[in-house]
């Protein structure tokens, strides 16, 4: 069974079309990234997954049911875009109350919150007010609030936006750990290297799904050329796949041949969109 299933989803804001016939799937134990420019509809799609928005057309199912069913949302963890933990509460209280509002009894919630705080590397900060934390620690607290009740499905909307490289890497480790625990994870991001490093599959989206596959599949599918770097002269050439051998044979000295990165594939796909 799919953990997340979206079929033919469409949504407009007045005359502005945000989503057009979007379909996607996230299976259990899979981390799927949603990549697209600003205004591509990623957040609109995510807001359908936790019932902040209702589909105009199409079907959205999480764990086989309507996400507006509270029982389904209790089995999910979400970090909405730009959401902030409660600054006037400590890290522990934020995580503890995230469990309590989901109906976990007090003692159990305390135990789960302590365990989550420890697992996510927040132990030393557990008694600090969130308003006093760095952006990275706030984000990590938000992720802790999303996972405290051991959800089967995680939806993370740009969780690393605004983090410094160190903070981003730390959060990647957390996501890898969560994925290793068998959760289905949907991640939206602007960062190609993030999607490439973490994802089992990737969707390129700009109001509609433009391409889908594993990062290596996408690179292979859209690799119409290779980059050949002439290290002697420091020049970069774009060479068609069938001409690479002939081209490099003519080079004198050292050279490097590179397949296009996911970012280059993304730019190519978006250019044609």
């Amino acid at each position: 069974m799919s953990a997340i299933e979206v079929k033919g989803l469409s949504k407009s804001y007045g005359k502005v079309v945000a989503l057009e016939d979007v379909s996607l799937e996230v299976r259990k134990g899979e981390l799927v990234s949603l990549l697209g420019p600003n205004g591509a509809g990623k957040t609109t799609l995510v807001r359908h997954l936790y019932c902040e928005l209702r589909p105009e057309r199409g079907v959205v199912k999480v764990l086989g049911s309507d996400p507006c069913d509270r029982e389904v949302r209790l089995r999910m963890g979400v970090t909405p875009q730009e959401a902030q933990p409660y600054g006037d509460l400590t890290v522990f209280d934020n995580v503890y109350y995230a469990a309590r509002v989901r109906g976990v009894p007090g003692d159990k919630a305390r135990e789960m919150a302590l365990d989550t705080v420890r697992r996510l590397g927040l132990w030393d900060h557990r008694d600090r007010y969130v308003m006093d934390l760095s952006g990275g620690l706030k984000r990590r607290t938000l992720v802790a609030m999303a996972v405290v009740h051991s959800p089967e499905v995680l939806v993370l909307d740009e969780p690393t936006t605004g983090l410094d490289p160190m903070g981003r890497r730390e959060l990647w480790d957390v996501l890898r750990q969560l994925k290793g625990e068998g959760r289905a994870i949907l991640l939206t991001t602007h960062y190609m290297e993030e999607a490439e490093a973490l994802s089992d599959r990737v969707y390129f989206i700009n109001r509609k799904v433009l391409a889908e596959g594993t990062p290596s599949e996408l690179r292979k599918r859209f690799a119409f050329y290779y980059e050949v770097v002439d290290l002697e002269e420091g020049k970069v050439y774009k060479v068609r796949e069938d001409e690479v051998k002939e081209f490099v044979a003519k080079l004198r000295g050292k050279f490097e041949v590179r397949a296009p990165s996911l970012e280059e594939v993304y730019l190519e796909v978006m250019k044609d969109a």
Partner: protein
Amino acid sequence: MFFKEAKAWLAASLFFAVMLPIAFVFGFSYIVRGPAIYYLISGMMVFDVAVAGMLVVPNSIGWDREDGRLSLMISMGVPLWAYTLTSTLVNNLFAIGSGLLVLGVAVAMRYLDVSLSGLFLLILALLVSSFQGSMVGLLMASRIRNLRLLQQVTQIVAFGFSFFAPVYFPLSIVPRYLVPLAMLEPTTYAAQAIRLSLRGSPASIIWDLGTVVYGVVIATIVGRLGLKA
């Protein structure tokens, strides 16, 4: 959770809920004597309720929306109405507590006497006034999504309805042509209900009813328009 949040602002909360009402009673009771003291005391209570309902409640929701916490709550399976209602109740509890403290100080200083039935009527009046004020606050929070604008509008509304309405003075001295305007102001109803209850007059119940009807009308509008994250 809301009470724990309030703990972080304990000094300011105590000042506004405890010290300021006491200071008001001490300060203004020197220049306000006789029957007018009822207008001062009831006016301060209305001010507390108006500020809580029309200023604190909508701004609290505005900040929660700005910081994505309304979305966060929806994602956790918490209905938006339940969340906003809880936030509203907590804020109103502070306002009602503050109102009763004003009364306590005034009674202790022998500025006025309140019978047991008057106290009962007062609590009823404070409850319905809080409900009404909060509905006005929710209406503003539901329509104004821009936080800066919401902050400005709620300040003008809360203070405007406290000082440009028959709150600290009798409705009877309002010029006839301004009475319809005064009757559109929610604080007019709350002020009459609270003042009459202090005097132990059962007529306060009629103003309570007006206050409830006003609140229900606004609540219906809020329900129709919906409160969005």
